[in-house]
């Protein structure tokens, strides 16, 4: 039964990630293109029926116009409906990071359509959320991969070779587990240069996450390796003259896969949130590159916090991902438990 659940959650997550991966296609505009005439523009309404009560088949919207006697309040300019076009060509981008492309799901000629409003510099919030998701999710995913590699390596070393290596590494792991993780992440960030390019900052965030997070997977892997080492078939293989390398590759490391998968499902959302926290505080990905964290950073200003509700939308974007990963982690957990029961019954786990 759990296998079906795992598959279901994987499909959900795959769909969500595909949306973000195709940000260039779904987003109508370049995320860093500014429109200084229209700062903090509320989300534009898309209409089908115009002011005269006439039905249009093509969705359209009204451009913004300054209210009479105001310099920052906009209203709809109902005199001129602006049509939207599907599969319109617009700003150049690279689909999935390598395919050069300029077709967007929808686009407009001239006046820009702000589906989720604009930020202080008139950048399209919708495009920024999609592109920001790429950076946030990628840092979470890469951070998790890095962490798990480190954890698996250290855990296997400690569990398989035992002795002083084991005690040394596990004491170190306890040290890292003992620290409140956010303090540790802060401290790490404090000791690294503050003003760096977005790419470097991205790498720093990933390395920081791995440094903070490796201890828990390492301990779990060590436990699995310790028990796998004593299994009969492993002893038999050793009796037949198998070397350490062979044993590790064929018998020990494959055993750790289910633990690592579960840990991955737990770590990815945690790390995405950690990246958000760092960027929110100005310690992570710097402007102008968007990430869910630094998109929220403007909420630190009181005026933005109380006046422009759409600046809050990046925070909502993360929620479906957290739901998906939690569902996947629970399903994997059940699967692990079921596997254990089968092993105890003497069945073959594969």
């Amino acid at each position, binding site marked *: 039964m759990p296998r079906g659940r795992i598959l279901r959650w994987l499909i959900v997550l795959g769909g969500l990630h595909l949306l973000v991966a195709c940000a260039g296609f779904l987003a109508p505009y370049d995320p860093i293109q500014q429109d200084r005439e229209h700062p903090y523009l509320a989300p534009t309404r898309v209409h089908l029926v115009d002011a005269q009560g006439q039905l249009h088949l093509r969705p359209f919207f009204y451009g913004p116009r300054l209210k009479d006697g105001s310099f920052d309040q906009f209203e709809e300019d109902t005199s001129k409906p602006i049509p939207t076009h599907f599969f319109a060509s617009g700003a150049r981008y690279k689909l999935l990071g390598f395919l050069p492309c300029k077709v967007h799901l929808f686009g407009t000629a001239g006046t820009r359509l702000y589906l989720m409003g604009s930020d202080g510099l008139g950048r399209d919030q919708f495009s920024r959320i999609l592109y920001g998701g790429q950076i946030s999710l990628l840092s979470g995913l890469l951070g998790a991969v890095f962490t798990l590699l480190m954890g698996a390596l250290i855990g296997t070393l400690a569990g398989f070779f035992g002795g002083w290596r084991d005690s040394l590494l596990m*004491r170190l792991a*306890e*040290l890292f587990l*003992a*620290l*409140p*993780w*956010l*303090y*540790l992440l*802060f*401290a*790490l*960030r*404090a*000791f*690294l*240069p*503050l003003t760096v390019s977005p790419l470097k900052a991205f790498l720093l965030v990933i390395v920081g996450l791995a440094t903070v997070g490796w201890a828990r997977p390492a301990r779990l892997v060590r436990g699995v390796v310790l028990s796998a080492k004593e299994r009969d078939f492993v002893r038999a293989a050793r009796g037949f003259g198998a070397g350490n390398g062979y044993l590790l590759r064929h018998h020990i490391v494959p055993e750790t896969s289910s633990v690592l998968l579960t840990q991955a499902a737990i770590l990815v959302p945690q790390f995405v*949130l950690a990246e*958000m*926290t760092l960027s*929110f*505080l*100005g*310690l992570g990905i710097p402007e102008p590159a968007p990430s869910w964290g630094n998109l*929220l950073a403007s*909420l*630190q200003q*009181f005026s933005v*916090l*109380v006046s422009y509700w759409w600046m*809050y939308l990046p*925070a*909502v974007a*993360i*929620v479906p991902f*957290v*739901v998906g990963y*939690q569902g996947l982690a629970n399903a994997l957990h059940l699967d692990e438990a079921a596997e254990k029961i089968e092993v105890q019954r003497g069945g073959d786990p594969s």
Partner: protein
Amino acid sequence: MRYLLHRLVQGVLLLFGVSILTFLFSTLAPGNYLDEMRLNPQISSATLDALRSEYQLDRPLPMRYARWMNSIAHGELGYSFAYNTPVAPLLWVRARNTLLLTVTATLLAWALALPLGVWSAERRGRWPERALSWFTATLLVVPDLVLALGLLILTVRSGWFPTGGIASVGFENLSPAGKAQDLAMHMALPVAALVLSALPILVRHIRAAVAEVLDAPFLRAAAAHGIPRRKLLFSYALRAAANPLIALFGFSVGTLLSGSLLVEIVMSWPGLGPLLLEAILARDLYVVIGGVLFSTVFLVAGNFLADLLLYWADPRIRIVAGAR
């Protein structure tokens, strides 16, 4: 007793480890406070060199560590470049506020989670329990940052609670009762954010732990003897389920400390969080190390408290430790 002593020594060793670790990290890092000064054309290189030798930044690492240890022994925790004072008094004021926040939040979270968890373990499958588990599941997927910002917006819009800071203007002139009320009003928002973020995990673990013992034969026997349901749940079942929960308590202290760091910054509570953030942005090394060390002290204290509780709650530990 020996068990407790053992744990205490472990805690102190841990602190040592953390101090060495953070110190190491700090020297591996490129750049220091003076690098920012170097960009200022009004500061001559001679002044920089003088400052460097004054702060002892030109000495080798072990020497600096020894000096720092010495300053800890004098209760100073090193010297802040930006504030130009010893670190300890600077941190102490902030740490008191952080402690106020986390202790209140921890107590409140547990006071809420225990009855909720036990109650929902007893009523598995009924609709109030299902509503509660939906509620905790919802809270679980809302990130801390989002929760804190959401609460902030809510209070700013509604004006129910003061936002930001720890005291109103004119706090000194209030009566003691007025002071307490003012403090409580200011604490309400950050404490609520912390409690709400900690609650779902606590409730889930408590429910699972209690549900596991509820089917035990001794509880059925006790129920058959006519012991009232409430007494059965809260003194018999909870006691039997206590061990993993006490371990969870130690863990929850760490989570709440990390959570409070963020909540303090978002809600501008004058705790360790904002100080640490400023220190990072100013590259004020010893303040950062001091902050991390303070948080570890809290954590070790929390874990020691958990050990004390375990010692008190589980006779097996007392006997094993006594026999040793």
